[in-house]
């Protein structure tokens, strides 16, 4: 056996990865970060020191066996690497691109204590993209168990829950209000970060598992959650509708025609393809755009405006770069693309051009005071620092509130902020109805939503008396994993064999 790798024996630098030149990419919607070549992937995989007790896996919200899949890449077994990842994460091509790895797996990586951490996200994406190109999918033999599962929302939470329930043998239907599935992966994240072709490929994989997608279906209004259980014959329901009800600032001029939410900008551009002249949805972009906020959505909005032809794009954020919630890579890419960052600046009013549009903004400078409830230092106004700033389009990306539709149409219990109330198992106040993702936690990340979808799937399986293959053939179930003390061998578990 080869000698154990140590921090001293591995390549010190990360494998270089190709990127589109900033000047070229601000004129197209193609991906910014290119895929690893096989040589780059090999090199990067060799940087994993294969810790006996890896800390990266606990850093992943869905617990991907990271050491395992990187070892397969190093052994040049990409199919094996794909199978390792898809045991826990159905969407490697998505997560490799959009997870905030620096706060998760890569943030925990031991190599990162002294060198740059292993580029786990890029390796995951490499495996996911290879699988799409090769047409691989991990479809196990599934024996139908007769249970019908309804999933509300086709975003990351719903997709992850659907995959687990379908693998357990359930008949799964996913409802989507829009005319295309994918949720935030479709309408929110732009093509240069997550191409629609990747979303399509991941959805096709779910369809291969037997999952049915039904679009144009606004659950709550076309039929209610209660009707799904009582009339439509679903044995359990998962709600993953996301947190889309954008916040505005509540300052003068908020309602002017040149002010729109980042959600609206991104939906028009990404889902409705307003960037393409062949499509009907309008999206006029100003010459001087100001985007308020510094999260991932704000970065996406700025970079979309850049590509749609804005001459200047400004980021207005009341804290400093260190507190910006966006992924480091996104801020970095935005800076490369010539976005002008105004840190420690807050808007006070949006100014009317006299024709219902925007001529500028009044801003005030901020400084950081004592830490607030979020642990970040609270921005405080600098007295007398107000100034005017010219712009003709203002994009608001300061977060979202709970979407009210499920609450308006169901007796389901909501929390004080209007999100769906759940227990630790993600069970709601309605029997057989589970919820997860942004509609429970408020706006978070794709991978956290997927983690919630999987947690809910585990709870739903328990509720229905289904056993995972691991529980049946692997380790004996722990006492608390046994429903009402029943022996799983005698209950209606399903036998899942991998083909």
């Amino acid at each position, binding site marked *: 056996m080869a000698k154990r790798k140590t921090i001293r024996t591995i390549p010190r630098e990360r494998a270089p990865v190709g990127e589109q030149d900033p000047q070229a990419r601000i004129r197209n919607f193609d991906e910014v970060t290119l895929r690893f070549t096989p040589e780059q992937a090999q090199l990067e995989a060799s940087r994993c020191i294969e810790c006996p007790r890896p800390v990266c896996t606990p850093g992943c919200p869905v617990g991907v066996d990271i050491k395992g899949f990187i070892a397969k890449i190093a052994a040049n077994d990409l199919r094996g690497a794909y199978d390792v990842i898809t045991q826990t994460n159905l969407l490697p091509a998505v997560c490799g691109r959009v997870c905030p790895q620096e706060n998760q797996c890569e943030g925990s990586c031991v190599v990162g204590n002294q060198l740059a951490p292993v580029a786990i996200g890029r390796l995951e994406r490499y495996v996911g993209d290879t699988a799409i190109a090769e047409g691989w999918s991990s479809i196990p033999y599934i024996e139908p168990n007769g249970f019908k599962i309804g999933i509300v929302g086709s975003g990351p939470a719903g997709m992850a829950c659907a995959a687990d329930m379908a693998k357990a043998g359930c008949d799964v239907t996913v409802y989507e209000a829009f005319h295309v599935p994918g949720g935030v992966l479709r309408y929110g994240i732009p093509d240069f970060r997550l191409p629609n072709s990747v979303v399509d490929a991941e959805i096709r994989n779910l369809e291969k598992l037997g999952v049915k997608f039904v679009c144009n279906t*606004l659950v709550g*209004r076309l039929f209610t959650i209660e009707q799904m259980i009582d009339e439509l014959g679903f044995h359990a329901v998962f709600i993953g509708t996301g947190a889309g009800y*954008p916040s505005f600032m509540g300052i003068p001029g908020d309602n002017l*025609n040149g002010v*729109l*939410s980042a959600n609206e900008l991104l939906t028009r551009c990404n889902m409705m393809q307003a960037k393409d002249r062949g*499509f009907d949805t*309008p999206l006029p972009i100003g010459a001087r755009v100001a985007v308020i906020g510094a999260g991932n959505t704000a970065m996406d909005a700025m970079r979309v405006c850049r590509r749609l032809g804005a001459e200047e794009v400004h980021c207005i954020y009341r804290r400093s770069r260190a507190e910006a919630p966006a992924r480091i890579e996104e801020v970095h890419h935005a800076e490369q693309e010539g976005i002008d960052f105004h840190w420690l600046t807050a808007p006070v009013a949006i100014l009317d051009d006299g024709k219902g549009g925007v001529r500028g903004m009044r801003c005030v400078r901020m400084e950081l005071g004592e830490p607030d409830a979020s642990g970040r230092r609270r921005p405080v106004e600098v007295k007398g620092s107000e100034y005017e700033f010219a712009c003709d389009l203002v994009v608001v990306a300061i977060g979202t509130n709970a979407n009210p539709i499920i609450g308006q149409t169901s007796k389901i219990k909501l929390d004080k902020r209007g999100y769906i109330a759940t227990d630790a198992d993600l069970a709601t106040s309605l029997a057989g109805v589970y919820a997860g993702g942004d509609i429970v936690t408020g706006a978070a990340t794709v991978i956290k939503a997927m983690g919630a979808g999987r947690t809910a799937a585990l709870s739903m399986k328990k509720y229905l008396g289904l056993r995972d293959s691991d529980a049946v053939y692997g380790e004996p179930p722990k006492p608390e994993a046994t429903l009402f003390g029943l022996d799983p061998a005698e209950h209606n578990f399903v036998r899942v064999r991998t083909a």
Partner: protein
Amino acid sequence: MSSQMDASGFEIVARQDFSDVTYLLEVRHPLMAKAARAGQFVIVMLNDHGERIPLTIADFDRARGTITLVIQAVGKTTREMQQVCKVGTRLYALAGPMGEPSHIGGQRRVVCVGGGLGVAPIYPQARAYKETGAKVTAVVGFRNKDLVFWEDKFRACCDEVIVCTDDGSAGIKGNVTEGLRQAIAAHPDIEEVVAIGPPVMMKACAETTRPHGIRTVVSLNPIMVDGTGMCGGCRVKIGEGIKFACVDGPDFDAHQVDFDDLMVRLKRFAAVEKAAAEKFEESCRIGRKAGG
């Protein structure tokens, strides 16, 4: 049209033309026919390159499993729909019913006012009020007698129908506020007025009822993308606050609505819309020439 052969989408089962710009489409969607209630709307996409447009549900027939839309050809999409939507063709997308249904029930006497295109969506409201036992007066306004439609449907479900035309060629001469004034004068016990139509008409109705202190409800029609509360494009000023018409409405207290703000916001894409409509007309002319 290739969409005729396409089994996906939502089938148009009837079409009627009320004038050279106003047309009715009846679309098969049994689940929606069952769920729809007065005051709700749908989002329609003509084809996969189209835009999502909100349209108020003008009628629904639970037995036939259909919903009815009455559309005015004013922009590129509605003109294109006027040309290509025939019986047997399909709409690419149809989502709904969206929005909070109107709060109907408990009123003893109401007036339902519909102006122009608002005549169609006021019909299910009038019918719903009647079903809850209210005395219903309908005031419906058109430019002239040739544009009058659904008078028989209103007569069948209302206690009184006042038709108004701009030129006096049918019913009383004047706009719907004239009819509304007559109704208020004749019935001192009116508890609620519902008005649907162009913003300027709804604003006039709100001002007509305000001195009488009659509760007045309007259905707002701002620009939308998704219709599910996600984009905020449809935000409207109601009193001191901002509401999203798609999920908080579309019905609001008329005396609280900032109609001037709504009218400005409706012109948000005016330049692009005009250009798209002109380009579409031009392509139709070329198409006609090429087709002989």
